[in-house]
């Protein structure tokens, strides 16, 4: 077992190759973003920038829209995480009680699970958001998905593991459930709460579709929606009426370096929280998936 055999080298090489393949698109995009426009469009860039320059990044800094969208995304993440995590923490505590203590518990639980299994679909949900006057407001990005049933269940399962004796003495002393949540449950569940906060953060940062359907004013679009809009350099109607040769020509003049630079910059916040995420997501995933 201890000596390093031929098959060990094969396995090592295979795993290094797999790891490398996971980085290829990212390394390629970094190289393109730091290359000369024409060189990038001509396909001369693989992993090393050609005619190194930071023109694409300078362009981003000069362009106000990118940072405005970046700002919208930051606001969205702050609102989305505080509302989403706040609600999950609030709901997970009563839901962790047995139906004998909290008679309505199973009614709420079934309602919540039902919303995970079935949904009204795109247009009916759109109509509700529209009738509430949320179109073109940041609330349309935050409120429709505010309650994550999945996260609430993860937290609830954690709460169930906290011994009831801890809160019983507090209850006898006359503390109310809200005080118990703040003084006993939240401090004990800190790590779980941090986990769902990080996941909620990444979700709100990466999500682009709500911005696409609910936000029509360009200034209020979140970052991913803005970038998604850019990458479509040709409208679908235009494309349907073009020959492949025309499309090749059109795409060649599209701004590959600029778009790649935007993709890289918008990745930065995720990369920053990634080390923290990595500390938590193993527990998070196992908590959620293999309960019992």
């Amino acid at each position, binding site marked *: 077992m201890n000596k390093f055999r031929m098959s*060990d080298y094969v396995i*090592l090489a295979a795993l290094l190759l797999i790891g490398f393949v*996971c*980085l*290829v*698109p990212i390394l390629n995009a970094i190289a393109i973003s730091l290359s000369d426009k024409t060189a990038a469009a001509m*396909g001369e860039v*693989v992993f090393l920038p050609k005619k190194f320059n930071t023109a694409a990044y300078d362009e981003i800094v000069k362009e106000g829209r990118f940072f405005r969208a970046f700002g919208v995304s930051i606001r969205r993440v702050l609102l989305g995480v505080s509302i989403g995590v706040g609600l999950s923490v*609030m*709901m997970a505590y*009563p*839901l962790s*009680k047995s139906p*004998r*203590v*909290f*008679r*309505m518990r199973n009614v709420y*639980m079934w*309602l919540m699970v039902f919303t995970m*299994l079935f*949904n*009204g*679909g*795109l*247009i*009916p*949900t759109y*109509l*509700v958001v529209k009738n*509430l006057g949320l179109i073109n407001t940041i609330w349309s990005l935050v*409120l429709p*998905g*505010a*309650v994550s*049933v999945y996260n609430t269940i993860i937290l*609830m399962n954690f709460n169930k593991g906290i011994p009831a004796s801890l809160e019983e003495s507090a*209850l006898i002393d006359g503390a*109310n*459930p809200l005080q118990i949540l703040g003084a006993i449950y939240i401090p004990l569940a800190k790590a779980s709460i941090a986990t769902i906060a990080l996941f909620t953060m990444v979700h709100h940062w*990466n999500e*682009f*579709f709500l911005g696409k359907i609910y936000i029509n004013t360009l200034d209020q679009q979140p970052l991913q929606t803005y970038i*998604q809009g850019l990458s479509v350099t040709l409208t679908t109607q235009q*494309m349907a009426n073009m020959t*492949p040769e025309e499309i*090749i020509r059109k795409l*060649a003049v599209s701004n*590959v370096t600029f778009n790649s630079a935007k*993709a890289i910059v*918008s*990745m930065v916040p995720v990369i920053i929280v*990634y080390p923290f*995420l990595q500390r938590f997501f*193993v527990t998070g995933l*196992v908590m959620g*998936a*293999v*309960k*019992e």
Partner: protein
Amino acid sequence: MRSVKNEIYYNAMMVIGVGFLLVFSIVPMFGVIIAFQDFVPARGMLGSAWVGLKHFNRMFALAEVRNVIRNTLVIALSKIILNIIVPVSFAVLLNELKIIPVKRVVQTVVYLPHFLSWVILGIMFTNIFSYTGIVNQVLGLFGVPPQMYMISNGAFRGIIIGTDVWKTFGYGAIIYLAAITNIDPNVYEAAAIDGAGRWQRIWYVTLPSIQSTIVLMSTLALGSVLNAGFDQIFTMYSPLVYATGDIIDTYVYRMGITKMQYSFSTAVGLFKSAISFILITLSYTLANKFADYTIF
């Protein structure tokens, strides 16, 4: 111990969250009635004309809908199968690597794509599969003439399935790695004493030990048979690949938001939601029955 006072608090703690669910999840469920109307926004749901199953009949008569359903099934099923085989193989392979620092680095790298958005990855893969991208450059070395893969009906599904596996296999492997960690090391030692080689250990110890996890994950995946991955396809497709890449969700989006055929779009969406509901319920029931899996 039950106390009415505490229950008042419990209900109060539930009320905001449940309120959000009622407004944004439950109310839209009643909104599906517009699938049975010729819905006109100005007239509202109460004023629009009822047309029964008109939109459903039209849906089943349209060749493009049949095509969309076929694409959805092909793409989703391929993803489901590969997203079990690849993560399991990767987890087994990683477990064979005994150099811990390298293992850590590989794990860090392969988990990363899971956290990147399809918008960003869409740009990156469009670069890679473009006429002048890496794929054409590499294949060019072997004399393959360059092609525009992203707009080729022959390649699009493969790209969608392959890049999805690329994004999710590392993260998907975590659950199998956790299961492998739980294997008693004595079993491996006993197998080694009995003269089992590496492949025999994998085949007779590792795989049987994680079999129940594989079965559980496969059962739960049943619920996503109609989910071919909206975000990914939406950020990577174009009209040129509708024939092989258009799925139910992208079709519902185009019919509903772009073409404003509210009722028809909702009918197609309802068809999908209803079947998904049955499949998810079935998969949870099976998982609960055979693996004691519960979500709450």
